[in-house]
């Protein structure tokens, strides 16, 4: 048998204990007082409505700071309290008059919503955070004024009071340790923080203007949409003054969520406010997007991390949602079905907004991408954001060996297979990234750096979605074969002794040497590892982990005991040292062995693999020997007895001429005419520039990688807009160049549709006609461009068209000459016989070309 018993409460001290421990921030005492005042004026209006009385006076709340009396007085012209209500609500902890009023209104009319804030009936407790005694002077309509007093103990007193008008004044007798609140500036700040949008003006002391804004932008009506946007934007800018909004979104979203007590099992609500993509970098994986939350006009908490989806780390804003439920301290929101629905609704809104932005304003979206690429990629790879992925796929910016680059831009200049599919090269391992970027960069192959999470997933999703556009090649996992050119049988035989020497050195077959040709020629040897090899290396580490269960370790070690996957040591047939080594009669002497070991060790380090201790010792010894040799050579040079080896690798030539990169819409014949006009102007007097199509490979295979990349390194980028439609790919290119701050000129054919307004700051020239007319328009646009007119020292580029003009050389011959001797001076200084031999023409033709160039130079 059990019996029901009742909890006993020792009220003495409990009120103060609750007040001082419930709230984290003592400032909230004023929020609670103002909120009670707000509910009181709302209640008065409701009662007047119920009783069909005339409209009550305009709501007003005042806060008076009285330093002399050590009091803060909060007064309202609300409905006041009767004697019975004082006992029922003011003096009963946990009973909320506001809640009861809310329920009564809803019971009478489900369609009516009244913004009442109070909920728990504990707000008055907060007065005891700062006060040792609280007095309430109140007068309800048709009743005498009453004065209630409590010191937070078990008892309170009620006696007749004095108050002329209907309403309530709460008097806080401030404790000595909280006199900092007897400061009107501090009080105004608290009012603005917690009650800015409460809907009732809050006056502090004798101020003529309220301390709060009274209403939020989303509570006002506007004559025009741009006024509404401006008001929301202004709020965001003022609230987050230390940050910059990259894109602002006005929020006014309906949503629904399950509620078993609601008719139909579902409730509806609305989220209002303003969100923005910030310029705040959030590298911390635990970082979240944050919002300042309001519920029923009252501020609940700043920087709430739970309202936005986890991936929306780049968003920040201010939101009001009356369907969210505050916790008892009202500094956060409860995790419930409404919060889940709000988060989902906001996620949909953000995706929708960014999708539209990517479609309508490439420039803005690309800029956002540059700030938040990581988070946007994370979002795009989620299956539920398929539309977003498809919209932004080409605009997504990933890191490459040459800086950030949009995927679409990469593809336009990427290697194309015979079936038209472009190859995307990428790496995922940070440690070996430098090796692969060095190898690929030397061949003019750009590489996406996917060491950041989500980048590889994004590329994979791209290739799966559009297999006809792109195919992936992961360089650091058995994908680097394309970088190594096989040798023909005759040449390969020259390196067989070298391969055999390595086979002898690595009798355990852990390394297999293979000769091939790769760039840069200065690199003698590199190591690559297969996927299997990588996997075994990781398993080695795992098997060595003491925490690994023995039963599993046995199996792993059993597997690892089998033959290992060898590392491949690629020997560069283009490298003079490798050639010399291969030509040696024997590699089995000390010099030969040291050289082989040294080349291997260097390759191992380039792959970012740890060297064994004995290898480190060998390297230091060899390094000392090399330094000694260098010192000896320096002495020989000083004595004039040193001759440079014939096959030393030439230093990379620096480009000393200027080039212009031209981006054209594909398959548009008119753009070809304009391109030809650009060439005829810039390749000729007085400019003598190189003109390249943006998607063409470099004309000079010897150029170092950082110059082998039009349009990123061109002195000027020209975009040609021609044809009946606006080419979106071209728009993207221009937008990206704008953001990168590259010099640009737009040549727009007459009759072409209008260009985006965002291009207003890019120099533009409208062209028309053919032949001389077209060239005149192009020349005019170029002549007015500041970058073309900039004074600087540069050499004249030797273009095929100049060679055709000087000596009637055919285009293909001119191109061959130009590739070997890209500047006038290099051509003039070269031996004519060498030139003739190199490009397979008569020496007389070379002489004629040189003579023609000299005449041209004299004319200039």
């Amino acid at each position, binding site marked *: 048998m059990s019996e029901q018993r009742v909890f006993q409460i020792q009220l003495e001290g409990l009120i103060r204990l609750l007040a001082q421990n419930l709230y984290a921030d003592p400032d909230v005492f004023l929020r609670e007082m103002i909120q009670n005042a707000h509910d009181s004026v709302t209640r008065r209006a409701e009662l007047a409505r119920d009783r069909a009385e005339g409209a009550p006076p305009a709501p007003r709340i005042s806060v008076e700071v009285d330093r002399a009396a050590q009091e803060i007085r909060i007064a309202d012209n609300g409905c006041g309290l009767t004697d019975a209500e004082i006992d029922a609500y003011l003096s009963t902890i946990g009973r909320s008059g506001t809640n009861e009023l809310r329920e009564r209104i809803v019971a009478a009319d489900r369609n009516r919503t009244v913004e009442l804030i109070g909920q728990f009936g504990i707000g008055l407790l907060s007065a005891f955070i700062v006060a040792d005694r609280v007095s309430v002077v109140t007068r309800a309509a048709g009743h005498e004024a009453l004065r209630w007093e409590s010191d937070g103990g078990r008892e309170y007193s009620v006696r007749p009071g004095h108050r002329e008008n209907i309403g309530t004044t709460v008097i806080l007798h401030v404790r000595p340790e909280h006199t900092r609140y007897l400061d009107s500036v501090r009080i105004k700040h608290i009012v603005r923080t917690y009650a800015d949008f409460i809907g009732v003006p809050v006056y502090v002391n004798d101020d003529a203007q309220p301390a709060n804004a009274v209403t939020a932008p989303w509570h006002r009506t506007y004559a025009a949409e741009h006024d509404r946007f401006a008001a929301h934007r202004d709020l965001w800018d003022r609230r987050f003054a230390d940050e910059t909004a990259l894109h602002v979104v006005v929020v006014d979203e309906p949503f629904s969520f399950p509620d078993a007590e609601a008719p139909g099992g579902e409730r509806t609500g609305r989220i209002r406010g303003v969100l923005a993509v910030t310029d705040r970098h959030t590298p911390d994986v635990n970082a979240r997007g944050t919002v300042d939350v309001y519920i029923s006009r009252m501020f609940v908490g700043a920087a709430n991390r739970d309202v936005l989806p986890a991936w929306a780390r780049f968003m920040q804003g201010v939101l009001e949602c009356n369907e969210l439920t505050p916790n008892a301290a009202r500094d956060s929101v409860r995790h419930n079905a409404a919060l889940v629905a709000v988060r989902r609704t906001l996620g949909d809104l953000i995706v929708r907004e960014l999708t539209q932005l990517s479609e309508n304003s490439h420039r803005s979206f690309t800029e956002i991408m540059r700030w938040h690429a990581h988070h946007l990629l994370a979002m795009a790879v989620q299956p539920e954001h398929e539309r977003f992925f498809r919209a932004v796929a080409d605009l997504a910016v990933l890191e490459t060996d040459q800086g950030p680059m949009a995927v679409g831009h990469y593809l336009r200049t990427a290697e194309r297979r015979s079936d038209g599919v472009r190859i995307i090269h990428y790496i995922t391992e940070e440690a070996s990234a430098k090796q692969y970027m060095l190898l690929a960069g030397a061949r003019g192959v750009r590489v996406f750096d996917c060491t950041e999470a989500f980048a590889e997933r994004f590329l994979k999703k791209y290739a799966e979605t559009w297999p006809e556009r792109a195919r992936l090649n992961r360089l650091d996992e058995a994908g680097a074969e394309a970088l190594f050119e096989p040798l023909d049988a005759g040449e390969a035989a020259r390196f067989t002794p070298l391969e055999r020497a390595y086979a002898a050195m690595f009798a355990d077959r852990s390394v297999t040497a293979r000769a091939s040709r790769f760039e840069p020629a200065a690199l003698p040897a590199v190591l690559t590892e297969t*996927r*299997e090899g990588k996997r075994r290396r990781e398993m080695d580490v*795992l098997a060595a982990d003491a925490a690994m269960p023995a*039963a*599993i370790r046995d*199996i*792993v070690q059993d*597997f690892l005991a089998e033959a290992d996957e060898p590392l491949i040591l690629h020997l560069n047939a283009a490298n003079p040292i490798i050639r010399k080594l291969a030509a040696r009669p024997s590699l089995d002497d000390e010099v030969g062995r040291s050289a082989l070991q040294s080349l291997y060790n260097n390759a191992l380090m380039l792959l970012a693999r740890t060297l064994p201790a004995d290898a480190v010792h060998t390297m230091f010894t060899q390094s000392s020997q090399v330094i000694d040799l260098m010192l000896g050579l320096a002495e020989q040079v000083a004595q004039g007895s040193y001759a440079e080896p014939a096959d030393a690798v030439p230093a990379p030539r620096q480009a000393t001429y200027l080039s212009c990169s031209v981006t054209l819409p594909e398959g548009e014949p008119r753009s070809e005419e304009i391109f030809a006009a650009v060439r005829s102007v810039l390749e000729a007097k007085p400019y003598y520039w190189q003109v390249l199509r943006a998607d063409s490979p470099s004309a000079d295979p010897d150029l170092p990688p950082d110059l082998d990349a039009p349009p990123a390194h061109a002195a000027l980028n020209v975009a040609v807009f021609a044809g009946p439609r606006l080419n979106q790919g071209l728009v993207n290119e221009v937008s990206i160049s704008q953001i990168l701050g590259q010099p640009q000129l737009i040549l727009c054919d007459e009759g072409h549709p209008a260009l985006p307004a965002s291009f207003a700051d890019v120099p533009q020239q409208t062209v028309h006609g053919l032949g001389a007319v077209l060239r005149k328009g192009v020349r005019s646009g170029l002549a007015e461009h500041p970058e073309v007119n900039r004074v600087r020292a540069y050499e004249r580029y030797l273009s095929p068209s100049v060679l055709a003009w000087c000596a009637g050389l055919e285009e293909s011959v001119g191109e061959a000459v130009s590739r070997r001797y890209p500047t006038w001076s290099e051509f003039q200084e070269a031996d004519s016989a060498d030139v003739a031999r190199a490009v397979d023409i008569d020496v007389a033709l070379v002489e004629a070309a040189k003579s023609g160039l000299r005449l041209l130079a004299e004319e200039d």
Partner: protein
Amino acid sequence: MPRESARRAIDLLIGESSDLNAADRSVQALAVAERAVLAAWRLGDADLLVRALATQASAQRLLGENSAAMVSYIEVVKLAKDPRNADALADPSAVRAIGRPSNSIRPSTGPGSSAATYAD
């Protein structure tokens, strides 16, 4: 953490077996898959066990060991049907592994493959 390193090691074994299968090295693939099955079974991890069994079955099938492949597939289906494994098998890679048998158990023109063999 010990479980995590063990899981990762088994995951690597499964990856190794799949790659060997793809490279037409099914004998080696089967040897690695058998180790993965044993390790996953010892660890008591349904997700890994399903994936290891599916990889083992693929290797067996490529080697023409269809009866053995059938046994492996049946093990996969049994594991998938066991309600105790519902949570563990929610992982997409496990779901794919479970889905594979239904695609694989069909008449094939490959060596040693026939509907009759599967009906044995």
